[in-house]
């Protein structure tokens, strides 16, 4: 093999190391994002929902706590030395989105659990629960969006090129995943209404953000392929179709048994497919030396 004079590579070998993360990391992106959105929705229900949505706020707080707990387990499962998971809290490093995210996850999850446990309490314990709920709700915002920053803060061309768009996509998708999960749970009329409204806004935003990501990664010829072709491309397209379908179905003036569940199921699968698509795209992108070199030559 002789190096091409126009666009040399070293025997087509990757210029970067492929991310070593396993499936549990994109699964965490789903669980953690959903948990963050739930904490924030719990806060919204707490301050603007009144007693009518108290049970709903409690449910959101539990989703936040369980999602954060499950997310932590998924992240620990990926570590090369899982027994050293607490070293994540050994330092606080503002230059590392993973450090910031670890601190957010480790604080927001117990706060959400505490607020959930104290929702039905009265007096001082209730005030304490609401105080926890406020803090969890605020921390839910970075929890739902920092994973987009975490991926951008790498040398992987497809992730780095979408650094302005990925947090928007992950934030929208976190809310859409939450709305979908809520649609799968039995609810009363006003709870259904909240989930439907959130679903409408977040699914629409997710579709727009996904197009923005696509535009960002295809700015340099050859870089966007990682997201649009292969396994990542199949997942990416599946996600878009399922999100659009859930959006259309939720708006369709038809009613049948299981309509809500079907919408929620499609939305949930869309959220999972989206995280795995972005993850797989990064792996494919890191393997492609031309993508690395072109992206850098273009100054992006």
């Amino acid at each position: 093999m002789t190096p091409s004079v126009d666009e040399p590579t070293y025997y087509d070998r990757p210029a970067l190391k492929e991310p070593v993360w396993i499936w549990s990391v994109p699964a965490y992106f789903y669980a953690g994002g959903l948990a963050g959105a739930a904490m924030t929705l719990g806060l919204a229900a707490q301050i603007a929902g009144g007693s009518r949505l108290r049970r709903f706020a409690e449910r959101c707080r539990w989703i936040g706590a369980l999602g954060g707990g499950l997310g932590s387990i998924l992240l620990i499962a990926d570590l090369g030395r899982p027994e050293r998971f607490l070293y994540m809290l050994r330092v606080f490093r503002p230059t590392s989105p993973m450090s910031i995210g670890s601190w957010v996850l480790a604080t927001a999850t117990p706060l959400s659990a505490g607020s959930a446990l104290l929702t039905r309490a009265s007096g001082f314990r209730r005030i304490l629960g609401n105080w926890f709920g406020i803090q969890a709700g605020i921390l839910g915002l970075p929890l739902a969006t920092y994973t987009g920053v975490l991926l951008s803060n790498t040398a992987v061309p497809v992730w780095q090129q979408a650094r302005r768009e990925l947090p928007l996509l992950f934030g929208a998708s976190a809310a859409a995943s939450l709305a979908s999960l809520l649609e799968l749970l039995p609810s009363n009329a006003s709870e259904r209404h909240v989930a439907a409204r959130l679903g409408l806004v977040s699914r629409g935003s997710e579709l727009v953000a996904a197009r923005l990501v696509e535009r960002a990664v295809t700015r340099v010829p050859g870089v966007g392929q990682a997201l649009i072709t292969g396994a990542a491309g199949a997942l990416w397209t599946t996600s878009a179709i399922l999100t659009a379908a859930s959006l259309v179905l939720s708006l369709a003036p038809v009613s049948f048994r299981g309509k809500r569940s079907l919408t929620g199921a499609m939305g949930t699968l869309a959220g999972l497919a989206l995280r795995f698509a972005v993850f797989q795209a990064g792996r494919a992108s890191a393997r492609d030396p031309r993508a690395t070199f072109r992206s850098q030559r273009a100054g992006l």
Partner: protein
Amino acid sequence: MPKGFFTDTTVCIGCKACEVACKQWNQLPEDGLFFSGMSYDNSVQLGASTWRHVAFIERPVPLSGQDNGSFSWLMMSDVCKHCRRAGCLEACPTGAIIRTEFDTVYVQPDICNGCGYCVAACPFGVVDREPKDGRAWKCTLCYDRLKGDLEPACAKACPTDSILFGEVADMQQKARRRLHELHERGVVEAYLYGMDAESQPGTEGLNAFFLLVDRPEVYNLPPNPTVPTKKVRESWRSAALASLGLLAAAIGAVWSSR
């Protein structure tokens, strides 16, 4: 005082003494017997157990100053660059990756929990997680030898002084002199890769830099590497915007159900 390598690829003879010395001194596990078909390069890349890697390029292009017809050999001993702005160090969430008193970048094995973030954050594809061991490993610039006032094993073993070790300021001076000498001899292709912040702003310069005679990509070096942290501010700004949107959507959804 900052210590580093100046690797002059024009005097590398591809003997791989550096690879062997590094393996020996650092007691790195073998990578297995593997035939790559990539010229004389069977170690293929830097990795968790390969901290020096000699690249071989059989180039159908003449090199000025050589009388070899339309052919030239390129050999280059690659290593961790010990960047002045190191992507791995800035990404490491545990504080396992530190900057030493020699200004080198070192992964503390007793701290690393194998999160793998440094692997994705290195713009040179250097650091890697060892699957069996679970931790991230890369060149230490022989931190232990430096502590004992010894030069790193690879530089010590290099028979042609292609790998020079010393204070970074001295290395830079040597490199400039060598570059001038080569240009005078007509090797106009020669240039210094990553020597200072001026030539490589993305990393603010490398403590282990190179003299090359072809484009960086030919040696599998990135043309314009940048520590990811330099660009991440825009990403945080988007996260803040997305957070505001999420908060508005949550409150709006609750509000509209009243």
